């Protein structure tokens, strides 16, 4: 079985600015990995590069075995990737339900179930059902974050790229998000998450990559987390 | 150092020019050159695209013409009144247009200039479609301006004065603030500058100089028509600046020279092209100024955005960087040492 995501020597530019200097990592189906690092290290850029949202890219990005490095963004999505950006991107001119229904269901992953139905999503996120006719941006921060993730679940994407979903949210909401990630993992989703909040990511991820200056400088498996804490503390300045 | 030599050369050429080319044609070039430079002050240095600059050209021209014909005033007063009229118009138009940003600003200038067009069309003193004819050359400080050669040097002096004013403005602290506004307006505001005041001042200055160009042109050609207030004229000055190089000092002048010469020679160019290619339609090129102008516009926006002077400048800059790179010490093998 091929890796859900296989990146080799990924380099990326924003215009003239060279931001990723050779990222290589591999994620198996059903795994949850976390990208850690200081601000500006290139974590968000890595996710964006996977989606083709940066400038020039070179190297190799294989999603379920298909090469994605040369594809336009909308075709990459069709490979079964769901992207949840840091700014959440809830559309103000659409209602909650319109926001939810917006992404088209992708005829993507072979064999895997098509996107979650609306009923399943509302079962998982009951508060979204309550607010379905409200304008998207009138939801609270936590609700908007839920909406942003629920949106991509509808598409049938099995590889989820989540950028700082716990940022700026109350602890009670963050706990709910952690439970959501666990549920998704049980359902077999593959998740790559960029997280500033180490305490949030620590119990969820199978593996941690530390990124600095556009490169991976440290790879730590979940089992070795305690042993490598000093290294991590130094790198993250936590 | 290079610049001083180029300036000297240009000046000498300008002084000698009327002996090799038609003085009236040259004066037309200078007037449009000044007009384009005035326009460039807004787009090239403040980042404001005015789509209604014809209003100022025409206002200066019509008021000057009226002053000299009906009111019988002397030439310097006429020119002054023309500049005053266009400045006032600039104040009003600018104050209204600045209330909106970006693309809305341009649309407002276009709409307001259209109002000026209709005013010129209807106002009795402009004689509407017939145009204002028979503007006398008169005299200036005892110099007889009906002599083309004499008038040429007067117009050259006006041009140099206007150009020098623009150069001074651009290099002054005021000009630096304008550039800051162009690059990052929110930043300029956060630094405490009253951006609207600066924009308005730049607008009025630009309008005044455009009016000066218009007034001078009316003096040279002895008439003023609605063409000068029509929106196609506003488009033409944009084209001149684009072709020559937006944001450069000399670019608009070069662009004006090129476009005015092209318009002049279009008929001949068309006939030549028809002869060379055997395509009859080319012979009508002389009447199809719009088609050629449109083509040049499209080609420039897509392929030639920096304009003539801009491209030359970029070429010179890349050569200079190459030379500098060759003369600096190479970084040492162990990785230390000053990077290039």
């Amino acid at each position: 079985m091929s890796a859900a995501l296989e990146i080799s020597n990924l380099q990326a530019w924003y215009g003239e600015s060279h931001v990723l200097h050779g990222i290589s990592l591999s994620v198996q189906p059903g795994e949850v990995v976390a990208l850690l690092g200081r601000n500006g290290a290139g974590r968000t850029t890595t996710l964006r590069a996977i989606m083709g949202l940066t400038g020039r890219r070179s190297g190799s990005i294989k999603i379920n075995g298909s090469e994605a490095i040369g594809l336009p963004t909308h075709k990459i999505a069709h490979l079964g990737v769901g992207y949840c950006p840091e700014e959440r991107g809830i559309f103000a001119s659409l209602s909650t339900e319109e926001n939810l229904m917006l992404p088209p269901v992708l005829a993507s992953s072979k064999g895997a179930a098509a996107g979650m139905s609306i009923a399943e999503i509302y079962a998982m996120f009951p508060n979204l059902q309550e607010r379905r006719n409200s304008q998207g941006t009138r939801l609270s921060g936590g609700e908007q974050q839920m909406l942003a993730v629920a949106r991509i679940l509808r598409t049938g994407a099995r590889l989820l790229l989540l950028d700082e979903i716990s940022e700026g949210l109350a602890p009670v909401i963050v706990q709910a998000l952690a439970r959501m990630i666990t549920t998704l993992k049980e359902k077999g989703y593959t998740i790559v998450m960029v997280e500033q909040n180490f305490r949030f990511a620590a119990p969820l991820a199978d593996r941690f990559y530390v990124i600095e200056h556009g490169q991976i400088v440290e790879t730590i498996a979940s089992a070795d987390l305690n042993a490598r804490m000093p290294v991590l503390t130094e790198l993250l300045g936590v | 150092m290079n610049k001083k030599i180029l300036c000297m050369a240009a000046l000498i050429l300008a002084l000698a020019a009327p002996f090799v080319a038609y003085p009236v044609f040259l004066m037309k070039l200078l007037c449009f050159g000044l007009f384009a430079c005035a326009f460039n002050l807004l787009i090239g240095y403040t980042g404001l695209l005015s789509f209604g600059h014809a209003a100022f050209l025409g206002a200066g021209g019509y008021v000057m013409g009226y002053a000299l014909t009906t009111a019988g005033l002397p030439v310097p007063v006429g020119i002054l009144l023309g500049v005053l009229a266009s400045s006032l118009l600039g104040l009003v138009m600018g104050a209204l247009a600045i209330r909106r940003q970006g693309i809305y600003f341009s649309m407002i200038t276009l709409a307001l200039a259209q109002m000026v067009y209709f005013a010129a069309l209807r106002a009795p003193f402009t004689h509407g479609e017939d145009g204002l004819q028979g503007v006398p050359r008169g005299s200036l400080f005892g110099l007889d301006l009906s002599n083309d050669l004499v008038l040429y040097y007067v117009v050259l002096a006006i041009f140099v004065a206007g150009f020098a004013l623009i150069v001074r403005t651009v290099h002054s602290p005021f000009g630096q603030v304008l550039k800051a506004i162009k690059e990052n307006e929110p930043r300029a505001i956060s630094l405490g500058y009253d951006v609207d005041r600066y924009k308005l001042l730049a607008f009025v200055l630009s309008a005044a100089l455009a009016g000066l160009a218009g007034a001078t042109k009316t003096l040279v050609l002895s008439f003023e028509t609605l063409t000068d207030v029509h929106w196609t004229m506003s488009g033409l000055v944009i084209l001149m600046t684009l072709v020559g190089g937006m944001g450069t000092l000399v670019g608009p002048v070069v662009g004006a020279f090129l476009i005015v010469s092209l318009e002049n020679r279009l008929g001949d160019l068309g006939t030549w092209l028809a002869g060379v290619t055997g395509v009859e339609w080319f012979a009508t090129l002389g009447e199809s100024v719009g088609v050629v102008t449109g083509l040049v516009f499209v080609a420039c926006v897509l392929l030639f955005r920096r304009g003539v002077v801009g491209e030359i400048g970029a070429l010179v800059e890349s050569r200079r960087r190459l030379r500098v790179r060759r003369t600096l010490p190479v970084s040492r093998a162990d990785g230390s040492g000053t990077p290039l």
Partner: protein
Amino acid sequence: MEIFGVPLQALMSQLLLGLVNGSFYAMLSLGLAVIFGLLNVINFSHGALYMVGAFLAYIGVTQFGLNYWMMLVLAPLAVGLLGIVIERSMLRWLYKLDHLYGLLLTFGLTLLLEGVFRSFYGVSGQTLDVPDALAGATDLGFMILPNYRGWVVGASLSVCLATWFVIEKTRLGAYLRAGTENPKLVEAFGVNVPMMVMLTYGFGVALAGLAGVLAAPVINVTPLMGSNLIIVVFAVVVIGGMGSILGSIVTGLGLGVIEGLTRVFYPEGSEVVVFVVMVIVLMLRPAGLFGKEK
């Protein structure tokens, strides 16, 4: 019967003419707004493409023996296709730049299109006959309604409202609205945004072409008919703002009516009344009547 010293028939007739003009303002400013929302480009060539629509109708009827109803469908399609070619081959390269370049490019295209048509047709006008089914007039009691003018207003309003419905109430419209806010994210969801952009531009200019066909039997068809109109439409857009579809429609119609009324009481002012309204709005409510300023 007289109102303010003007016979009712004359007043109603001018009001109707105002509504006719207003319909064109509405259709054109709607197209401009839709294009600007998604592409961030002010399509100066909107007026020229309106002219092309009118000329295609004229040419189709007089030279190819097609009838008005066929041209009502064919001309907008042709103009839409032309728009798609323009977007694909030229506009697309300018999106990364300052959006003033889009305005300049479309301005150049305007000169080009008008120049080409001028070289074939000169500046004098052509007229197209009103189709038989719409000829004549209906007596409404308080006024005589020229059937064709009633048709123009009705057809334009229907098209505008249909456009509003599609944009505000359908899934397709949701893509457009979302794409206006954040095109990259919509693309990340798997929507082919470049194609949506292309089709939106084509649709916007097809609206202009349709307006041209509607206009051909009532307005003198000349190569310059578009540019005079587009400058007024710009003023309409400044007044109404481009953020709201309904706002564009209401503003366009309203200004047409105001223009018509001005023509009754103060004919010379009718040329500039829209600009005067723009000046007033700028002084009192700079953001525009319905604007959600970008």
